[in-house]
């Protein structure tokens, strides 16, 4: 009996000691706790930009011991949806990186921290392109910092182009004939990579043609205007290009991959393409070139922005601001321009001549960004996500069911008017 009591006493003592040690260890862990800032982005593995972000994160973590930035990948096609769900659930990431086209719903709902009171914001306002204030000032407050302004260019495989005996196209009809000539479906060879899976990238690719034809999604009052001759013309070009020269049903990721493997002969895209081209198959890379798009206007404008949630504790807001600000210095902006291969939003950040020589597409993209027209749907800024879904879904009918452009655009006009009324 005494032995049993002794055993119980020892057992109780052992449990007590274990609990005490656990508590002490937990206390020690608490003292050295790391602050983690979540940073989801579609650029996490994007050649060029990804490296710049990782350098920025490493430098920030060195300067802020005990703070870690968790840089995770979310595909662009689902990025905005996920962010909205996270904000709605009151658990947004600390660092909010979002395409400029879909940033407005976040600003409009008061989810983003106004940045006007933070140190260094005046320097950004003074040194950045006017697109900074055009994009990031919403209802009188600066809610974000512009990461990139851009224009699209035509990135093409000069060997495949030469095989057709054609020159770089200078007109829309020439362009359509060229990409068709570079296509041989039975051999798995396509003249152009055009995104046809509904989502953000599909609408961006449609905008190349619609804006290229001089069309706009909306009129001066922000009402839908997709029945104008220019918009109809743009959609006709897009439909012809998609049906004659592209692998249907692909997203931007596989299409860029096909381009650098030589299976797709050309791709309309922004300056980040330079990073992808660096990863091209050695047999393809020497032939990768860029040229201005042969349309009267080039699609582009504000590309993406960075911000932070209003709901964060002030200590975390200060940390996130330090991180954002570190990317706006002249030195960081020059590195950004070299990494992305495009002019940075900070106007006094000039890329050195020797670095410029190493970026073969740089001048093309500088020119494109100067001529670029933003495809942000004026009047639908706060419903950009729904706008994109509706345009993509309706447009798909033109290529999947081969429905006439005019008929589909009438339905699209009605659907957008419904959205406007909601």
């Amino acid at each position, binding site marked *: 009996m005494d032995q049993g009591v002794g055993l119980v006493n020892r057992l109780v003592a052992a449990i007590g000691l274990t609990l005490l040690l656990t508590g002490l260890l937990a206390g020690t862990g608490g003292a050295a706790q790391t602050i983690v800032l979540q940073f989801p982005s579609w650029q996490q593995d994007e050649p060029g930009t990804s490296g710049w972000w990782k350098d920025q994160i490493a430098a920030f973590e060195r300067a802020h011991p005990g703070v870690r930035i968790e840089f995770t990948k979310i595909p662009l096609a689902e990025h905005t949806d996920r962010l909205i769900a996270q904000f*709605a*659930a009151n658990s947004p990431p600390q660092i909010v990186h979002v395409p400029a086209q879909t940033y407005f719903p976040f600003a409009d709902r008061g989810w983003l921290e106004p940045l006007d009171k933070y140190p260094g914001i005046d320097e950004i306002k003074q040194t950045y392109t006017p697109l900074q204030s055009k994009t990031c000032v919403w209802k009188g407050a600066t809610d974000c910092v512009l990461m990139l302004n851009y224009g699209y260019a035509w990135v093409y495989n000069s060997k495949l182009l030469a095989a057709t005996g054609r020159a770089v196209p200078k007109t829309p009809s020439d362009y359509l004939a060229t990409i068709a000539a570079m296509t041989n479906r039975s051999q798995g060879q*396509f003249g152009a990579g055009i995104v046809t899976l*509904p989502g953000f990238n599909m609408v961006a690719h449609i905008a190349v043609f619609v804006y290229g034809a001089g069309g706009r999604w909306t009129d001066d009052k922000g009402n839908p205007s997709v029945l104008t001759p220019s918009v109809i013309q743009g959609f006709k070009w897009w439909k012809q290009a998609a049906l004659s020269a592209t692998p*249907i049903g692909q997203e931007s990721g596989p299409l860029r991959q096909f381009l650098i493997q030589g299976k797709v002969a050309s791709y309309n895209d922004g300056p980040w393409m330079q990073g992808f081209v660096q990863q091209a198959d050695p047999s393809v890379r020497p032939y990768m070139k860029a040229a201005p798009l042969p349309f009267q206007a080039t699609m582009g404008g504000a590309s993406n922005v960075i911000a932070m949630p209003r709901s964060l504790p002030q200590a975390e807001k200060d940390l996130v601001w330090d991180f954002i600000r570190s990317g706006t210095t002249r030195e960081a902006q020059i590195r950004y321009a070299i990494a992305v291969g495009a002019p940075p939003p900070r106007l006094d950040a000039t890329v050195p001549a020797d670095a410029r020589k190493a970026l073969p597409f740089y001048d093309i993209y500088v020119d494109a960004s100067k001529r670029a027209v933003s495809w942000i749907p004026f009047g639908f800024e706060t419903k950009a996500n*729904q706008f994109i*879904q509706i345009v993509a879904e309706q447009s*798909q*009918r033109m290529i*999947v069911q081969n429905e006439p452009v005019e008929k589909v655009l009438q339905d699209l006009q009605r659907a957008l008017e419904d959205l406007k009324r909601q």
Partner: protein
Amino acid sequence: MVTTQAQAMPAGSTRRTWGRRLRGPEAFSLFLLAPAILTLVFVILYPVLTALNLSFRKVDIYSPGVSEGPFTLANYARLFASAAFWQAVRVSVAYVVLSVGFALLIGFGTALLLNQPFRGRTVARMLAVLPWAVPSVVAANIWWWILDPSYGLLNFVLLRLGLVSLPVNWVASPRPALAAISIVTVWKGYPFFTVMVLAGLQAIPKDLYDAAAVDGGGAFAAFRFVTVPGLRNILALATLLSVLWVFREFTYIWVLTGGGPVRATETLAVMTYREAFTFFHMGFAAAIGVVTLAISTVASILFIRQSGQEFY
């Protein structure tokens, strides 16, 4: 007049029966089961009631907890007037019929084969059920590459064999897209029927086949009058479970087609997701979910009633 025992007993005695039971070993069992029952109520009943509540509100997801709005039937009115909803119902039915029908046939056939004695039967049984073990997302991605219209394996084979002259747009044309998601679902789902039917076949007494042979019945007669009736309950259960699984299937469809092209593969499950997490119409999405639940419940009741008859 027939009087049941419950009717014959006074109300007080019913209460006493319950009271006596609760004081007995059953009460202790109930006490032990209570945490599990409460957990189940919380994880099943609470979400169902929440969805039901949401389906009668106009929910503003952008201001969580602030404006659920007053009680309204607007979501249901909009739902039943929506062409997209009826399209999703048609797609769901077609998808369930195609997927479960072919999975049942293939699973049944495979089980009959695997029930025969032959060399390497153990390995064959293992291989037959292998697709079941592949995680859904992995299976969907593998099939995405097989069915890719431009560079997929299936088109490559069809072109080489001369069965088609141009690549088939498996996931980018409406009818092939529905066929594509059904093929993947059948591939993933038939092993379930194989396992169930195989177990059922081994439970049928051999005497019945001997009796059928003595009566002069051939293989077909034995199959028709012994095998099929003997598997009736198992087939009904397996079909019911498969119908419910396929009816709420999301992964294969989302990964392969996203519900497209042009909503050709948008089932009720995919429509619910899109309305909830693309358009953020939470009340409307909840209404679709409630209707889906109602359809599943009715289907379950019908199946259970049908499968209640004993063979032996």
